[in-house]
């Protein structure tokens, strides 16, 4: 076995003189070609959306479809913003997502603190209680939740859009993992200095946990902003529609051609793409920490 391999290597090194120069170059070029091809396929739907959003009414109805825009005219964007209450939808979604994000940061920080720093009886049971919420699909509880929100008069309100989501088991686990890396001596020192547990949390733990809080913030904002079924059920008033519902309503209206709808789609995607570019690394590092360790 080992002799075979060493023979193999000597024959390889004999050829290496001539191969060394062009072989890596060829290999890399082929790999770049493959990478580019795959990237084009993955990005193609988004490219199409952008292209269509820049076409005029005649171009969008013509065949064959254009693969790239011919001019940079923003008529469709103006139309999407003026003729549909897209700005109002965007505003609603951003308010909803920000409130859920803040709520989750607060409740998850508090709960994670209890799991990480307080050695109490029943901690494992509580942990299972939190864990079990991840096993219960939202769809299994959606009818009673809809009835509850309706009976509270929370339909068409930010209350109905936010309150059911301001607790998160996933976020709690994420923060707990991070809190546990904070040395226990820090807590002892704080207690000796007469620092109460809430002070310790806000003054010492949370500033140290900023990366994990950032991950949770980005994650919960994205999740909420992209919600569909729940806002579809509990909002009927156009003033309270969120943007994901609003944009599909645009499609249902006959008077809007694909170019206007796609301009709307591009506008709706804009906040999440900015968030993706700004918070990408943060999000990935935080989300994968748990997943990779298993």
């Amino acid at each position: 076995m080992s002799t075979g391999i060493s023979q193999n290597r000597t024959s390889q090194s004999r050829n290496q003189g001539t191969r060394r120069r062009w072989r890596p170059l060829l290999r890399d070029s082929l790999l770049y070609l493959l990478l580019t091809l795959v990237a084009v396929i993955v990005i193609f739907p988004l490219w199409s959306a952008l292209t269509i959003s820049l076409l005029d009414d005649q171009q969008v109805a013509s065949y064959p479809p254009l693969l790239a825009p011919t001019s940079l005219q923003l008529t469709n964007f103006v139309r999407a913003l003026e003729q549909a209450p897209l700005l109002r939808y965007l505003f609603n979604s951003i308010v909803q997502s920000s409130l859920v994000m803040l709520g989750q940061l607060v409740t998850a920080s508090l709960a994670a603190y209890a799991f990480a720093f307080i050695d109490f009886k029943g901690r494992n049971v509580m942990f299972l209680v939190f864990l079990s919420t991840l096993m219960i699909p939202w769809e299994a509880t959606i009818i009673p939740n809809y009835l509850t929100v309706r009976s509270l008069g929370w339909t068409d309100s930010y209350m109905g859009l936010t309150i059911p989501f301001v607790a998160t088991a996933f976020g709690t686990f994420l923060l707990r993992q991070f809190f546990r890396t904070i040395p226990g001596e820090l807590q002892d020192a704080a207690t000796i200095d007469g620092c109460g547990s809430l002070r310790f949390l806000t003054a010492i733990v949370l500033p140290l946990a900023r990366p994990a809080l950032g991950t949770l913030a980005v994650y919960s904002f994205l999740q909420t902003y992209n919600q569909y079924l729940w806002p579809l059920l509990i909002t009927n008033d156009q003033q309270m529609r969120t943007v994901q519902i609003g944009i599909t309503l645009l499609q249902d209206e006959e008077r809007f051609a694909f170019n206007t709808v796609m301009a709307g789609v591009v506008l709706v995607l804009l906040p999440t793409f900015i968030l993706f570019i700004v918070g990408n690394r943060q999000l990935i590092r935080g989300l994968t920490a748990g997943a990779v360790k298993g």
Partner: protein
Amino acid sequence: MTVNSSQGLASQKSAGRARLLSPAQRRQIRKFLLALAYLSPSLLIFLAFVFIPLVRSFILSTQLTDPLGRSVAFVGLTQYQRLWANPQFLNSLQRTLLFVIYTVPTTLVAALGLALLGNLRLRNISLFRMIFSLTIAVSAATASLIFLYLFHPALGMFNYLLSLLGLQSVPWLTDVRTALPSVALVTVWLQLGLNTVILLAGMQGIPEELYESAMIDGASGGAKFLHITLPLLSPTIFFLLVVDLLAAFQAFTQFHVLTKGGPINSTNVLVFSIYREFYFNGQYAYAAAQSIVLFAIMLIVTIVQFGVIERRVVYE
């Protein structure tokens, strides 16, 4: 605020019982109440919007309801009997399972390919990694709208591209046979970003020395993938399998935007059926029974995964 006051409450209570309890016991009670105070905001929300509704879903499924969702009579398991007797529900079940089979393996394999490409040691590779993970930022609603155009029978891009290749056009969303695979295609594209990102992170966690020693032993690229990458990646793949399966069972948006359950119920998956029965047909109890079935299926899937598949996963 709440924390401070309940802390005060805790010390008052334990002061009252001071003579009965040892100092250690008192400390334990105080710790428990303190922890409870910190957990209470989350617990209250979970109680109100997860645990009680789950019980209510089950109770609702044993009732007869009026069109406003109010219980009229207890009917036991009649709603479930109605489900099993209804071909439309059995069709929903079958469609849901097919959708899961179409999407989950495809997503995992495609994402594995993307992650392997993104893990190459090349200049500007981070640009490609970013493109491969881009769909993380795309919502199901916007993705569906984009594909609605791409699928368009006359003006759509997909049929145009097929015609360039000399192929026949495909009816995509309008045919009973192609509608579900078409929705699955959108879903795979949508899930690619998250899957690729997590696989990439998993690959980067594999120690470099393993590949180096494999190279010294003369292992081929394929052998390295089969004997190093894949086994060490198995916890990550397992995690994604759970995530993707649950996401596939819960998919709704794509169906609502693209097909509304049609044509002829060929895309009427379970969650869409629940939505239609209670929101449009006012069949609250009947829909609740369906949602309990969904819950049971997902529970079984999760238990099977953790019980059977996880044992084969290699943890370091």
